[in-house]
């Protein structure tokens, strides 16, 4: 035990380990806060869908030989997220079907464009990097860490300030609209911050981990808690704890960070299922 602590202390002397820890925890926190809303709005798979959109945009950027492909990827992904999330409860095609359509379409276009126009593209590598993160979480630069901190502060502040509105709009959009709340604006706001955090996180830790961070903590919390507030708080705590545990384990055991966090989240989910069944649900 002492050995492990010593070993961890040693690792924490390296700035890249500290950076990874900070960014991991912040992304886990933000995505779990938004995860509750996303899961309840049937947008669990949005992380995955948007990563395919990003891939499509990247393919086009490569073909156009843009030097900085982010100028294309970021706006395209943002717009897709906003389109998906703002179509609201009245949309003809909604939730999972809309995400599936956009993601499959983008993937196909990306692949097609790359095949037709590009000769030397490493397609498998590109698909892999959008799924698992283009830069590994262990090679973050200081700028990226600050960007992440800034964005997280914004996301958390917006979430707290608009908490009641987010609840009302997620629970019953029609009623909120009928009684004169600016449901459209709130939906747009939610969409923008979700898109921002997903686009950022996708680049830092990969779409796979983002999807897991969105889904698992929210579902775990919903097994046990029955009010919106307690579900939000619980999922934030679960997410942060799991992310930290996962990163510690992966540092010590040398396993891949993203997948380790996902596995820890799965274990937590199983535990919450057990608690939920055993307690028959806490009244809170």
């Amino acid at each position, binding site marked *: 035990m002492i050995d492990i602590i010593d070993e961890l202390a040693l690792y924490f002397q390296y700035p890249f380990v500290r950076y990874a820890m900070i960014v991991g925890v912040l992304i886990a926190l933000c995505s779990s806060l938004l995860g509750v809303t996303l899961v309840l709005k049937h947008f669990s798979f949005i992380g995955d869908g948007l990563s395919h959109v990003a891939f499509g945009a990247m393919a086009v950027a490569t073909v156009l030989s843009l030097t900085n492909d982010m100028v294309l990827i970021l706006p395209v992904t943002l717009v897709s997220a906003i389109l998906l999330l703002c179509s609201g409860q009245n949309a003809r095609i909604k939730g999972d079907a809309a995400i599936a359509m956009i993601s499959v379409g983008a993937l196909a276009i990306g692949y097609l464009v790359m095949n037709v126009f590009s000769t030397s593209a490493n397609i498998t590598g590109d698909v892999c990097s959008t799924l698992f993160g283009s830069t590994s979480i262990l090679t973050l630069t200081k700028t990226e860490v600050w960007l992440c901190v800034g964005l997280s502060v914004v996301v958390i502040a917006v979430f707290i300030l608009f908490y*009641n509105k987010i*609840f009302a709009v997620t629970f*019953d959009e029609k009623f909120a609209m*009928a*009684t*004169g709340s600016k449901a459209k604006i709130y939906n747009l706001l939610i969409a923008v911050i979700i898109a921002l955090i997903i686009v950022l996180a996708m680049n830092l830790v990969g779409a796979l981990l983002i999807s897991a961070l969105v889904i698992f903590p929210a579902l775990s919390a919903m097994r046990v*808690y029955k009010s919106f507030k307690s579900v939000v708080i619980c999922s934030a705590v679960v997410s942060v704890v799991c992310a930290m545990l996962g990163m510690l384990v992966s540092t010590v055991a040398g396993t891949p960070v993203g997948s380790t966090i996902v596995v820890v989240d799965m274990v937590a989910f199983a535990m919450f299922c057990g608690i939920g069944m055993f307690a028959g649900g806490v009244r809170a």
Partner: protein
Amino acid sequence: MAQIICEDVVLGYEGKVVVKGLNFSVFCGDYLCIVGENGSGKTTLMKALLKLKAPVSGQILTGDGLKSYEIGYLPQQTTVQKDFPASVEEIVLSGCLNRCGWRPFYKKEERQIAEDNMNKLGIGRLAKRCYRELSGGQQQRVLLARALCATRKMLLLDEPVAGLDPVVTVEMYELITRLNKEDGITIIMVSHDITAAVRYASHILHIGYEPLFFGVKADYLNSDVGRSFMAVMGGAVQ
């Protein structure tokens, strides 16, 4: 001055007209019951009154100091999902949202309003319970309490008793009548229960492709439409 005035309103979806020639006004303290067959456009009219849907032509005016967002609303079918984790308290309180504007949190007085409304509807002790674990009747009361938080003036109820057992149905009607009589809240209710409609309402709007009748209850009972509808529905006049 009437709270709501409909002038030659035509309602429809994508060019297909559902109801036309709607002319009626609702005054403060009225209890209007909207009756009509399935698909005659009752819910569509509700949506139009709530400004969720624009009329094809004609206009819906609000007056007597009623803002269009000061209308409480109990939907026919809730779009609420089965597995949504929310406590009764949170849902009722969310009815106060339109009082907040850009203010991020609820004030003490808004929490008090929510609590009063829960007590008024007899769901005070359910405050901490999970919405999805309540019975249908209890859920309706929760949504009614939320609607009451959103208004002091007017309630729109779309089939508030659908799926409730006879005892609870009567309780629900009594409750609505009390809100109308004691608190002076204007009620606009859609109902298939013509017996209840003529017992509790002060005015009846019977809609079909063209509105068949609008007026006070006594006249409705003497009209041809009213008589034949009563005969079909087997309603016993009290």
